[in-house]
Every structure is written in C-alpha cells, then in structure tokens.
C-alpha cells in the first residue's frame, strides 16, 4: 500500500519536486485559455473513452479465454479456427477492421428494407455497436495469443494434481488452470489493456467522439499544437496509472518467492 511514510523517501521527494516543477512550468508557459470552452465536450469524451475501454476489454478477455484454450490444447477443429481468427485480427490494422465492419458490413444492412423497418435498425444505424464489436474482437485476438502461451505455461504437475482428485474438467479449469495462467500473464495483460486504451481513438473514423477526438478538435479549431495533447496525455496517464495499480494489486495477491 502507498502510505505517506513510503512517499517521504528522499528520492521520491525529489521525483515529486521535479514533477511539480514540470506542472508549474506547463501552467505558466503554455496556453490554456481554451479549456473553459471545451470542458463539457472533453468530459463527455473522457467518459466515452473509459466506458469503451472497460466494456471492450472485459468482453474481449472473456472471448480470449476460449480462444487461448482452444489453441493451447483444443482439437484441431477448434484450434485451427481460433488460430486463424487471432492471426487475422493481429495481422491487420485495427483501423481497417473498424472500417470494414462499419462501412463494409454496416452498409449492407440498409439495402434490406426489412432491416430498415425492424426494431434493430435504430441500433444498427448507430456507430457504437460497431465500435464495441471491433475493439472487442481486437482485444480478444491479441489476448487470445497471450492466453495461449499462459495456458501452455502452467506446470504439468499442477494440472495432474487436479486430475488425480477427479476434478471435473471445468472445475479444474476454473479453479486451477485459469487462475495460474492469468497470474502468469498479468503483467502482459496490463500492458495490452493500456494498448487498448490507446487504440480507442480509432473509433473516431466511425463518428464516435472520445477524448482523443476532442483533443484533435481543439487542435484544429485553434491550431494550438501541444497543450491539448498534453492534457490528453495527462488523462491517459491517470487512466493508465489506475490500470497499472489495479493490475499490480491483482498480481500481488499471490506472493511469489524470490524474484
């Protein structure tokens, strides 16, 4: 836990001083007069960033588990499609995927009048279902690969112990295999989630305004280069900081000897 005492170490005080100086310099030397005008828009953008990130990473991870497992131990008829999916997702730019889903798949729907008249049309007409779908699939693709390695990395004896006691397959998976795999993959997963945070701006191509798009808008309206981006960086840093802290905590739940 972060306690006041642990912060009052000389080098930490020095680091905080440097940080404070940086903040002060930025506050005085740079232009911030645009903030009041854009504040409501920014708040909306940040909120959108957060929920897109949260929803797509959680859904994506749930999808990544079967993808990883199928590749690690599945029979070929499960492993092959899973591997193909991961390869294609990881192998093509996310922008292209969003674009194909929305402008490719999405623009097929209106051609069918019955879709246009259905209950679903108001949703299919929106952009966010496509954004959520694309980002979820993307996260699942990358994490499917990570989980494949993590599943394969669990020591054989751990699984054998579960089998020897007659644990049903699913229980063994849920209680032994999955927790150990996740434990080993946590540092990587934390990084990948931050990557996902930085992938969210791509949804701007399908007309969703999140925090990055707000910063871009400020830049274009005013031609101020650095300030909006710096503020955006601070927002990202706070989100990433919270993520890193959370993942750290998860990681530390099981103490590891030595390392």
């Amino acid at each position, binding site marked *: 836990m972060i306690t006041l005492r642990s912060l009052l*170490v000389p*080098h930490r005080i020095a*680091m905080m001083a440097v940080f404070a100086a940086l903040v002060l310099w930025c506050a005085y030397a740079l232009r911030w007069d645009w903030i009041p005008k854009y504040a409501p828009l920014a708040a909306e953008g940040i909120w959108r960033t957060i929920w897109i990130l949260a929803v797509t990473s959680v859904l994506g991870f749930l999808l990544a588990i079967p993808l990883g*497992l199928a590749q*690690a*131990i*599945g029979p070929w008829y499960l492993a092959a499609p899973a591997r193909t999916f991961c*390869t*294609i997702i*990881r*192998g*093509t*730019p*996310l922008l*292209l995927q969003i*674009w194909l889903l929305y402008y*490719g798949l999405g623009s097929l729907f209106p051609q069918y009048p019955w879709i246009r008249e259905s209950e679903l049309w108001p949703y299919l007409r929106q952009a966010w279902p496509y954004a959520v779908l694309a980002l979820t699939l993307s996260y699942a693709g*990358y994490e499917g*690969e*990570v989980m*494949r*390695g*993590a*599943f*394969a*990395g*669990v*020591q*054989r004896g751990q*699984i*054998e112990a579960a*089998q020897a006691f007659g644990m049903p*397959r699913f229980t063994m998976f849920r209680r032994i295999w999955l927790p150990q795999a996740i434990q*080993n*993959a*946590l*540092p*990587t997963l934390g*990084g*990948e989630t*931050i*990557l996902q*945070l*930085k992938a969210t701006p791509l949804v701007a191509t399908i007309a969703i305004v999140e925090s*990055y798009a707000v910063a871009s808008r400020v830049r274009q309206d005013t031609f101020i*280069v*650095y300030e909006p*981006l*710096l503020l*955006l*960086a601070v927002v*990202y*840093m706070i989100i*990433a*900081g919270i993520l*890193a802290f959370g993942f750290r905590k998860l990681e530390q739940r099981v103490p*590891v*000897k*030595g*390392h």
Partner: protein
Amino acid sequence: MEQVIELLSLSPPGWGGNLLRGLLHSLEIALGAFGFGLLIGLGGAIGKLYGGPILRDILAVYTTVVRAVPELVLILILYYVGTDLINKAAGAMGYGRVEISGVAAGIWVLGVVQGAYATEILRGAIKAIPIGQIEAARAFGMPPLKMLRRVTIPAMMSFAIPGLANLWLIATKDTALLAVVGFNELTLETRQAAASTRAYFTFFLAAGALYLMVTLVSGRVFARIEKWARKGQPGHRRAGA
C-alpha cells in the same frame, strides 16, 4: 476487377510499387524499434525485479508514463520541440541549423515506447520461471550476465513469446506514426493512394493483405522460437482430455 489490377500494378500509374516500398520502410523501422525496445525491456525487467528502490521507482514512472502518453505526443515533442531546442542552443553558440533525421527520431521514440511494454512482458515472464531454476544457477556461482544468457532468458522465453509477438506486430503498425515526420511508410502510402484515386476499399484491403503476410511470416518465426523455448516441457494436450 481490371481496374483494381491497374491500380495495384507495380509501376506507375499503378500504386503497387509505392505500397511495397512503404511496407519495406515500415519493416525497417519496426525492426529497429522492436530490437531497441527488447534491449530496453530486458534491462527494465531486470531493474524492476532486482534493482534498488530508486531504480525501481524510476522504471515504474517510465513504464507508466511512456505507455500512457500517446506516441504522437512523444514524437511531436521529441522531434519538433527537440529540434527547436537544439537549434536555439546551436544558434546561441553561433552554429547553424542542424537537421535531426525524422527516421532516427521515429525509431528512437517507437523503441522507447516498445521498451516500456517489453519491460512488463519480460518481467512477467521472468517471474513465471520456477525460482529453483534461478537458485540453482546462483548456487553454482554463475555471474549475472551468464545466468541471464544461459538460464533466465531460455527459461522465460516460452512465457514471453506470445506477448513479444504481439508487440512486434504492433510495432509494424505503429510505424504509421512516422508519417508525422515526413516518412513514407505503408499507412501513409495507402492513404495517399486511396485518397488520390478514391479507391479506398481496394487500397485498404491491399494494405491489410500486406500486413497479414507479414503476420503469417513472423508467426512462423515466433512459432519456431517458441518450440525451441518449450523443449523439455511436457505438453498439456493430453491434460485437457
């Protein structure tokens, strides 16, 4: 269809050659950045695991800040503000303007970013090694560098490969960033071709196919390395049955 082939033909007026050149440039940058990132990552992971409190704090700031800040911000600041500052300093000392290579700056920035992710991936991988493996090396007096090379790296490899493979693929795509410093890599070439000809679909799909090819080839390479790294580990395939 004919039109598509014409658009993609390798010599002008087709854009195929431009795309391939862009791909080559992207790979060059990605390779440089990934390699640089691996070096930083290895150092960072070891520092985070075995370093003193000051080093650990500095590395924590590094991985959090660098991973969080959008690459565009980093490269803008590093390249434009950096060049500006250097030129101001040079001017004050009576030298002329210096040009910083945008490509070098790009590799540098991407490498530093990749390094932050690699740090975490490798730290996790090292942590996943059963401690006894490391202790055995220590007990026999292996010097740290040798231990790294002979025990730690081979033993952590199987845990690190999937994360590193992801990182490499991200590197090939993140080169898009270098468009900002005037470097023609695959994404910019694609956008130029698409916007100039209005054939968005054709060129985006073509670029997707090129990226996919890169992925398939690198997938092979990584699978090889992983197979090597997993030698001596009994498989799990049966364990699922």
